[in-house]
């Protein structure tokens, strides 16, 4: 799709196309080097070597030790393992968990499930930019708190949290600190030691790697229980036959990010800021969601008065632009995004939200195209809504 004419894919936060370099690295591992990492003969050991090499490559990006990385199938699985695994293994220490109000649904739902099992959960509010206050975390920590889990960068509004400060507080209080870095990993520098992180979630398909591979960094000595029991793969923490092709692809994707990150970040920030400035300047009654500076290099999120977001997404799709919205109309529950609600947007404001997320194959001409198409789309939809004309 990406290479076809007139398709401008601006939903990199949802998923990304696999980089051809990644695909090439993966291919031999399907039919040639297909062995099971648990097998003792050559084929198996070849797969095992590829797995361990991948672990090393990936751990290096976040300055972790290779043995501190567990591979899983998705960020959702990693987040489930982090929350439930730590909760279940540390029950004797306490039953209190702290998260923010703007976590990804897989953290929100895991916390809700733990509440049903008798754990207590505090959900820390955020300010209008989506920032969690480290002081609020400090205040919320109790004697029986076992885990703090805060998303590194918001998948919706792109706000980057003061992870280092939060980590420092948790370390001082003797509480495990987990961060969901699905959106930030590979895009901005992460150092699990300098940032005082005990557990970290990252995913392959958000960084031009394949779907089906993700990781959980677990600091040495962390008490955690597995969710999947079986053959004892991944140091007994995640039984399942290892998905070698996907993990090898994940490692290649990481290598590319590591090499290109500094330059790519600068390029994306320039394009993102052109997009934001262009939209706010060209479209009346448009507003930026999230923090103006402390945001992911590839995230732009807006709300527009008197238009509904799903209709914007459909209208843009007809012009070849792929985008997403936090409007209730596009959700399965018919509720507005909990993140937009948490930053104080009213229902009707979240109703008009639009998220555009950039990535590796977005060029300046694509941004120019959006800046041409989007204002016209909003104008047309406002005409249909009728509300706008009278004001």
């Amino acid at each position, binding site marked *: 799709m990406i290479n076809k004419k007139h398709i401008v894919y601006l939903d990199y936060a949802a998923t990304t196309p696999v980089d051809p370099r990644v695909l090439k690295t993966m291919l031999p591992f399907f039919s040639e080097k297909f062995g099971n990492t648990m097998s003792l003969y050559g084929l198996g050991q070849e797969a095992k070597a590829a797995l361990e090499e991948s672990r090393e490559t990936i751990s290096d990006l976040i300055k972790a030790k290779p043995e501190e990385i567990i591979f899983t199938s998705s960020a959702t699985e990693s987040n489930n393992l982090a929350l439930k695994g730590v909760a279940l293994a540390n029950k004797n220490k306490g039953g209190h968990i702290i998260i923010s109000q703007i976590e990804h649904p897989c953290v929100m739902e895991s916390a809700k499930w733990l509440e049903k099992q008798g754990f207590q959960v505090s959900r820390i509010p955020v300010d209008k930019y989506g920032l969690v206050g480290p002081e609020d975390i400090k205040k919320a920590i109790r004697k029986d708190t076992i885990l703090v889990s805060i998303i590194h960068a918001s998948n919706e509004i792109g706000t980057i949290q003061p992870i280092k400060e939060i980590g420092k507080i948790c370390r001082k209080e003797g509480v495990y600190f987990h961060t969901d870095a699905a959106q930030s990993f590979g895009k901005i520098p992460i150092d699990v030691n300098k940032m005082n992180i005990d557990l970290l979630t990252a995913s392959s398909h958000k960084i031009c790697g394949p779907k089906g591979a993700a990781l959980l960094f677990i600091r040495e000595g962390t008490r955690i229980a597995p969710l999947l029991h079986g053959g004892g793969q991944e140091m007994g923490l995640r039984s399942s036959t290892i998905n070698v092709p996907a993990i090898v692809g994940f490692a290649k994707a990481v290598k590319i990010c590591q090499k290109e990150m500094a330059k790519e970040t600068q390029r994306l920030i320039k394009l993102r800021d052109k997009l934001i400035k262009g939209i706010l300047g060209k479209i009346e009654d448009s507003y930026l969601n999230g923090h103006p500076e402390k945001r992911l290099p590839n995230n732009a999120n807006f709300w527009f008065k008197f238009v509904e977001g799903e209709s914007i997404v459909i209208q843009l799709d007809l012009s070849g632009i792929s985008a997403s919205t936090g409007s209730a*109309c596009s959700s399965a529950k018919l509720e507005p995004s909990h993140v937009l609600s948490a930053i104080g947007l009213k229902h009707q404001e979240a109703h008009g939200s639009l998220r555009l997320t950039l990535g590796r194959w977005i060029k300046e001409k694509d941004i120019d195209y959006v800046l041409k198409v989007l204002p016209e789309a909003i104008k047309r939809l406002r005409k*249909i809504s009728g509300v706008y004309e009278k004001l």
Partner: protein
Amino acid sequence: MTTKPYYSKKTIEHFTHPENFGEMKNADGIGKVGNPRCGDLMKLYIKVEKKGRKEIIKDVRFHTLGCAAAIATSDMVCDLVKGKSVKEALKINYKDVVKGLGHLPEIKIHCSFLAQQGLRAAIEDYEKRKKK
């Protein structure tokens, strides 16, 4: 199993080229409805003409702040109503609207309720004004 596209061709057509949107001056009935769940808003205007004993809906227009399905169902209900008598129009329900569009995703069926409600509210308003 065959999979349908999210929106039918007809839905997209009515969304991209709605022929019945816009304000109506001197409307005989106006229906204002909102969907409390998703937040969509709809306004439907009717113009009624008496032909003998029959009251015919001569013209119908809408304004809708909502998703593609809400816009398409608004336009569709207008198409269905135009030229019908008030009595006939009251018989039109959301299923006719969905049928007219081919299909709607399950989650969007409530948008066709809004179209039905908008139409009935406009007729109610018309009847009320008549009594005055």
